[in-house]
């Protein structure tokens, strides 16, 4: 009899969910009218494999009784968020999707509780959490309960950090305290034109600093992907974003307990890449595109770039080598000669730490003339920020493979995953120049411009990979076209790498 009751309850729930989706259809027109957004459930439908979504807490309602909130018409089963678990290409993921159609997606105590529940489960099971953010902010009617809810989520974001990958996809407004949850997650993606992230909106900005600024300028996808570096990538629309998220998910391990995933791969691991023999220009001052190298080496030329429009002098992103996910870091000679500055150091450091936390091997392509000089950089704290990248590479214990394609000058040589920072396989192309600085500057210091042939001598002595190779600082000078083969072989061997650092509560990265 109990069972029968249960069944009745569930079918009632289902009816409610049908009703909800009907309600959603009614909201549909309102939503799409000039907004171009999907509903919370439609988003989950597109993100997860068909019929794989198991919903949690569909019967949860908010507990607020003030301001007439306890009237029946103000109660929605499930409140303003849909949570649950499902599969993406067969692999487990925990998902929450905020529902803008219920009180503007505002965060109530119940809403936060639902999110916390899936996060706790995810951490326990060891599977990623994906948040689809579309919320007007705190549920003002609930007061401090709502704020407490935010803090509960933040705590879990921090506790999950480095345990399971956390991804935020901003699909609508996300303002005030709410922004800190995406900021704490590993990746923040945005939808162009329909999503905003800011601490305070344009009206408050106007009243405080008297600046006239639109929502889009203040916290739109363009601002955060190109200027602030808050978001890691932006997509055209909801559908585009969700489809890309599915593809991105395949690169990630489920947790820090899992190795980097290996997909079926049709691209031969022993494929030679002849164009790499000529990709570095003869003149060492001429630029080339590091993405050309990355694309030609990666499986099927696929590279999921992270932060493609921010600090473009460093390229970071995910690719596969013989099916296995790798994190790729490369200096980009095409932008600012590929030098390291504050933004690129921070961008690189965060990416390296993600890969290290989740067992993703790192492949580093080095063509770096050094750190960017100037007062702007020094005043901005390039010393502190540059140290982050150094710290990240040094503490990483995942397999680290480094290829010096051309310049590796000065301190930047040390920073870029050098042998000295526990690099596992460090290679140089014949075009590599490993030196303290460029020949011209070096000669000016050594000879004060008195020696006529000094520059040629310096070039012959240092502007090549031999000094480093003879000391064992690079393991081999390799023919560029064989780079893919070498990397694939190394990764196979290094898959069983174990390396540990001294016991500590946690390290103290120079933040």
């Amino acid at each position, binding site marked *: 009899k109990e069972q029968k009751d249960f069944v009745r309850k569930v079918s009632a729930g289902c009816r409610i969910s049908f009703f909800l989706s009907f309600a959603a259809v009614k909201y549909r027109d309102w939503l799409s009218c000039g907004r171009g957004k999907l509903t919370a459930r439609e988003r989950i439908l597109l993100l997860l494999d068909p019929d794989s979504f198991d919903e949690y807490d569909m019967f949860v309602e908010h507990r607020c009784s003030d301001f007439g909130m306890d009237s029946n018409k103000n109660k929605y089963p499930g409140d303003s968020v849909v949570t649950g678990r499902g599969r993406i290409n*067969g692999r487990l993921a925990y998902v929450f999707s905020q529902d803008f159609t219920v009180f503007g997606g505002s965060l109530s105590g119940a809403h936060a509780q639902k999110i916390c529940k899936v996060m706790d489960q995810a951490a326990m099971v060891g599977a990623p959490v994906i948040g689809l953010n579309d919320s007007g902010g705190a549920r003002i009617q609930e007061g401090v309960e709502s704020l407490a809810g935010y803090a509960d989520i933040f705590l879990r974001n921090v506790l999950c950090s480095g345990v399971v990958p956390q991804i935020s996809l901003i699909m609508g407004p996300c303002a005030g305290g709410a922004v800190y949850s995406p900021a704490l997650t590993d990746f923040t993606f945005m939808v162009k*034109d329909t999503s905003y992230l800011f601490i305070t909106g344009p009206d408050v900005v106007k009243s405080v600093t008297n600046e006239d600024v639109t929502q889009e300028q203040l916290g739109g996808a363009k601002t955060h992907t190109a200027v602030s570096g808050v978001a890691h990538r932006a997509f055209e629309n909801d559908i585009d974003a969700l*489809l890309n998220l599915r593809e991105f998910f395949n690169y990630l391990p489920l947790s820090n307990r899992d190795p980097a*995933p290996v*997909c079926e791969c049709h691209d031969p691991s022993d494929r030679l890449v002849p*164009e790499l*023999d000529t990709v570095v220009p003869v003149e*060492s001052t001429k630029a080339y595109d590091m993405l050309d190298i990355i694309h030609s080496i990666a499986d099927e030329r696929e590279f999921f770039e992270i932060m493609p429009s921010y600090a473009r002098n460093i390229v970071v992103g995910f690719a596969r080598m013989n099916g296995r996910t790798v994190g790729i870091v490369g200096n980009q000679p095409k932008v600012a000669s590929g030098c390291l500055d504050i933004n690129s150091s921070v961008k690189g450091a965060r990416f390296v730490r993600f890969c290290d936390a989740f067992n993703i091997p790192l492949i580093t392509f080095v063509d770096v003339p050094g750190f960017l000089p100037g007062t702007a950089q020094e005043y901005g704290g390039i010393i502190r920020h540059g140290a982050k990248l150094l710290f990240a590479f040094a503490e990483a214990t995942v397999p680290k493979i480094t290829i010096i394609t051309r310049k590796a000058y000065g301190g930047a040589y040390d920073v870029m995953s050098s042998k000295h920072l526990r690099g596992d396989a460090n290679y140089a192309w014949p075009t590599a120049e490993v030196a303290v600085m460029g020949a011209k500057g070096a000669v000016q210091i050594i000879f004060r411009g008195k020696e006529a042939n000094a520059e040629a001598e310096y070039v012959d002595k240092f502007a*090549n990979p031999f000094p480093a190779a003879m000391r064992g600082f690079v393991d081999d000078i390799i023919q560029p076209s064989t780079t893919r083969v070498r990397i694939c072989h190394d990764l196979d061997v290094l898959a069983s790498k174990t390396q540990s650092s001294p016991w500590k509560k946690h390290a103290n990265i120079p933040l």
Partner: protein
Amino acid sequence: MAFQDFVRGNTSPTQQARLYRVGVLVFCPPCPRQRGTTPPYDWNTFEKLLIANRGEIACRVIKTCKKMGIRTVAIHSDVDANAVHVKMADEAVCVGPAPTSKSYLNMDAIMEVIKKTRAQAVHPGYGFLSENKEFARRLASEGVTFIGPDTHAIQAMGDKIESKLLAKNAKVNTIPGFDGVVKDADEAVRIAREIGYPVMIKASAGGGGKGMRIAWDDEETREGFRFSSQEAASSFGDDRLLIEKFIDNPRHIEIQVLADKHGNALWLNERECSIQRRNQKVVEEAPSTFLDPETRRAMGEQAVALAKAVKYSSAGTVEFLVDSSKNFYFLEMNTRLQVEHPVTECITGLDLVQEMIRVAKGYPLRHKQTDIPINGWAVECRVYAEDPYKSFGLPSIGKLSQYQEPLHVPSVRVDSGIQQGSDISIYYDPMISKLITYGSNRAEALKRMEEALDNYVIRGVAHNISLLREVIVHPRFVQGDISTKFLPEVYPDGFKGHKLTDLERRELLATAASLYVAEQLRSQRFLGTARIPVAKSKRSSWELSVRLGDGIYPVAVSKDGSSFSVEVDGMKLNVTSEWNLASPLLSVTVDGTQRTIQRLSRNASGDTNIQFLGTVYKLQILTKVAAELSKYMPEKAAEDTSSILRSPMPGAVVAVSVNPGDTVSEGQEICVIEAMKMQNSMIAAKTGKVKAVHCKAGDTVGEGDLLVELE
């Protein structure tokens, strides 16, 4: 120090020794001449030969030299330091910066290289210095053999007017009309009127179709005069122009001749080069479908008569225009190896470069006229880095990110001077390669060409494979009903790519949908054991929605063992393939029809570009659910293109004829862009006021760069 320097030996000996030791240098050691082995020829030849050219023709000449045991010297500009011809040659010397006038046309530098390397002979290829009498003269004065005719013949044939006179005297049919030197636009108009419209205007010194313009009235004559004289001055340093009667609807058929220094001359049959765009050849073949043996012999004999009349030696080409009644008129004689020489080599079995070198060394011809056969049929397509959708081909530049020649197709020859990773730059001709197929008959050669074009992988630059493939399967071309007007007649509104039949469209949709499903299935296959098991999908059918052009087609795919059963438009198709998703070429069989397709790109958003029957189709493949929801997605506003003018190709701005605030009328010239020696007049798309000008004369612009904005 650069890798290339290591390879070429600009390193210190210790460094080189190290590199050999570590195995970096084994792949491209300097190629020593094989001493002690007898060359497979029973005659003396040159020790060392310099090729004063670049690209495919330099590689072509080096190949024959290698066969003959001749050491080769390549010259190159600094941007060509990594070029294929540089790597193929035994020695290579840089002769200057990228612009041709400072490198490949820099006679002083080239003479210096000849002295330094002690080359005994120079092969000029085509273009550049191949028909430069001054160069030939300077070589002669240094005692270096020029592989080509002597200066007298170059001069006589290089001058359109003199060559006509000579031809007339040698009893060669010449074009009715008038030839003379033109001093100014007024005289040009007067001459044009005397001849009667239409007339053709071109630089006297220019070869081929470059700089050729056709005028149908006085105004066009003036414009043609202006352009041609500018081009004549910039390209040839010679202001003279030629105006003559323009023969409507002609065929362009040329006779290959080969002559020695002993007064012998042969004709090696004809080449049909009627398929042209902007007077530049695109598809050539030998023999011609149009000529009967009598006409062929008559043309050959006249060509030989002309060669003998100028005491010609080496290989040369006599170009004729042939009208519909098989009357043929002498056009010009090219005193060099032609681009399209491979088709002649295919049907005659001769190596023209080898014969040129023999003749230059002073040997008499080895063959008699009766020895020259027509064996089978050969077709050549010129594969260019250009966008065929813009006036049949505007140059494109870029890096060849992927490049694979269809050499696995039988009876295919590819003459190219580039490889994967090469740059197509604005400085030189945008030709990627010459693709030649051969067969026992024309149908076979064309069939192979179709296959070869489908199997040609070119990524990173736009290319004209789609146009070439459409031409060779066009019923008019297949029947041999062609003229130099073929392209504008067949595609009066410009080339738009292949037009899919219903059946072909279904095949494309089925293939694309199957590819999508194969990809989806693969992305669920993870190797190794997972801590949390991957859920096995039992799904065996997919409902998709494919957008192709303006249409959206529902497609249902179901997996059926290793093949897919696809339902499109209520028809069921069976699609099989190996589904190797990493290969640039995919062989797919749809209902028994085998096709080679190329998937150029895909992304997570479902956008897929597929090259099918030569043309690239943009498709978007979504699940039915996603497609239904996509109607709620906001439309992104498209750019209004009528009020802005963008550069259609990379190049240099020659002139800007408007200023901000000017009022322009529709069709008025706004600026002139020059790329790859070709000038293009940019016109206003509507009447209006100029809002802003973003370029000035002398600027270098990229494709799609904003030039001028209208209000």
